[in-house]
């Protein structure tokens, strides 16, 4: 039974207006670039500029493929690199981070608290801080110009471990106890008891890990010099610097770039919110 709370009519009207205005501000650039992706060249450079597309065309997309197939490395190669890197680092991150999250959430052992606090602490500074030493470490491990230098750091991403550990804490200890009585190893408990119960959390980790690797232009520009190894995100910045003639192709590329993460979020949204319920930092 829901009791009526104190809500004024004017308050509701005001809130509706604010939400509509902000929603337009947020969506406008994205919608505008989708529009631009379908505009023929003459419509892209029209005065006064028009928001909506009049005669939609797929030419920008075919241009994009054509443009990139003439480049030193074929377009498909950039796409393959991006998909390969994002897939492997996302998969690796979900497995490796939840494997570590389980003992941190459920077992007390010497150092467990310290290690987790270290992870929380690392949320407090940006990845840029570690940038130069990372480059030196990559160089020393001979990882520059390999896929590994784009994958390994993301597998060790901190936000994912934090969210996973917080979420696992709410699993009742009785599940684990009964598995222990049956003689299951810790590894078995993690895989058979814990993992099936934290589906919202690993869907969230998939979203965040994919978003971070798919959109990353910074680390590839630093660690990758071999053109054939570069991801799509980096190719996009080159197209976008191409100026007038490539404006249409750049808009088309931007649409291809933003779609996958949006689709993943649409699928995972309710699970992500479920996971974030336990995302608080308590002390």
């Amino acid at each position, binding site marked *: 039974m829901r009791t009526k*709370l104190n809500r*004024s009519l004017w308050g509701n009207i005001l*809130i509706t207006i604010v*939400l509509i205005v*902000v929603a337009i501000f*947020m*969506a406008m*650039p994205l919608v*505008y*670039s989708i529009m*631009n992706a379908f505009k023929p060249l003459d419509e892209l450079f*029209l005065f*006064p*500029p028009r928001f909506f597309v009049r005669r939609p065309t797929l030419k920008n997309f075919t241009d994009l493929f054509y443009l990139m197939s003439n480049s030193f490395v074929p377009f498909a190669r950039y796409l393959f690199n991006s998909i390969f890197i994002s897939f492997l680092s996302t998969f690796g991150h979900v497995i*490796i*981070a939840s*494997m*570590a999250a389980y*003992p*941190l959430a459920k*077992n007390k052992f010497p150092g467990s608290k310290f290690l987790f606090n*270290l992870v929380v602490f690392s949320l*407090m*500074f*940006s*990845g*840029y*801080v*570690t*940038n130069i*030493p*990372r480059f030196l*470490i990559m160089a020393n491990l001979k990882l520059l110009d390999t896929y590994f230098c784009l994958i*390994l*750091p993301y597998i*060790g991403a*901190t*936000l994912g471990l934090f969210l996973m550990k917080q979420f696992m804490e709410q699993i009742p200890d009785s599940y684990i106890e009964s598995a222990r009585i049956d003689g299951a190893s*810790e590894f078995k408990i*993690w895989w058979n008891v814990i993992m099936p119960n934290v589906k919202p959390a690993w869907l969230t980790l998939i979203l*965040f890990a994919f978003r971070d690797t*798919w*959109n990353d*232009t910074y680390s590839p520009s*630093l660690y990758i010099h071999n053109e054939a190894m570069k991801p799509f995100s980096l190719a996009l*910045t080159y197209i976008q610097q191409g100026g007038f003639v490539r404006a249409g192709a750049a*808009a088309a590329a*931007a649409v291809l770039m933003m779609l996958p*993460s*949006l689709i993943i*979020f649409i699928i995972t949204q309710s699970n992500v*919110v*479920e996971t*974030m*319920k336990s*995302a*608080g*930092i*308590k*002390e």
Partner: protein
Amino acid sequence: MREKLRDLWKEIKKNRESYLLILPYFTLFFVFVVIPVIIAIVLSFTNYNIIQAPKFIGWSNYKRLFLEDDVFLIALQNTFKFALITGPLSYFACLLFAWLINELSPKVRSVLTLLFYAPALSSSVFFIWTYIFSGDIYGLLNGILINLGIIKEPIYWLQDSNINLYVLMVIQLWMSLGTSFLAFIAGFQTIDRSLYEAGAVDGIKNRWQELWYITLPSMKPQLIFGAIMQVTASFAVADISATLIGFPSPLYSAHTIVLHMWDYGNIRYEMGYASAIAVILFLITVLINQGVRKIIRPD
């Protein structure tokens, strides 16, 4: 002492499976996060150009940063200006919008969540703002303003050193309803509705009082998490400046700490000096985050 060590060893042995499970993750975490921070601190006291071995030079890098490097001081000033405006604004925006959509029906809520979160999700396509802020008459904003007769000449939104930092702030705010926004949405959902009903009985008159006396105190852990995410992000601004305005920006008007570090580390290969900049960034964000954590502290 010996006794204690033996007990510790026993504990470790008993938990060896736990250590095995965390080993892969923490190997990566130490190699790519912890050790790099330590290396950055050590290198910041040296002169290192990658080719020759690092040479210890004491505090020289830091002295040079604050006493001789005018461009660094501009970067520092810009970064603070940027962070002090976008940090709090984005934080309260995340909180406000999460709160406002909380009472909507689940369907409307999930559509709005998607709309608000979409920019943060597609962070690499922020360059689409050039269609809007383009400095010629084909830019959407210039086109509209000229067409309406508000301005005669197109405004160089991104090149004019008086305004470009503020234009960047708008774009940063657009992208900033991110992870904290989701955390707040979730936080609002965890609050037991009966608390509100009890509050209404106790004389809570409107939704503002409800927010202040009931909702916020019960979601402090989320508030801290969100604050950390926003502070860290607002001090790390670099990409949008370099891509939209150019590097270096005219008169260094949009130069930031991270870009200064990038300049010395990745272009001039003065790794010691660049590390000192990294350490400054590290100290600033960690100190501010600790401060914020103290302020919001859960009871």
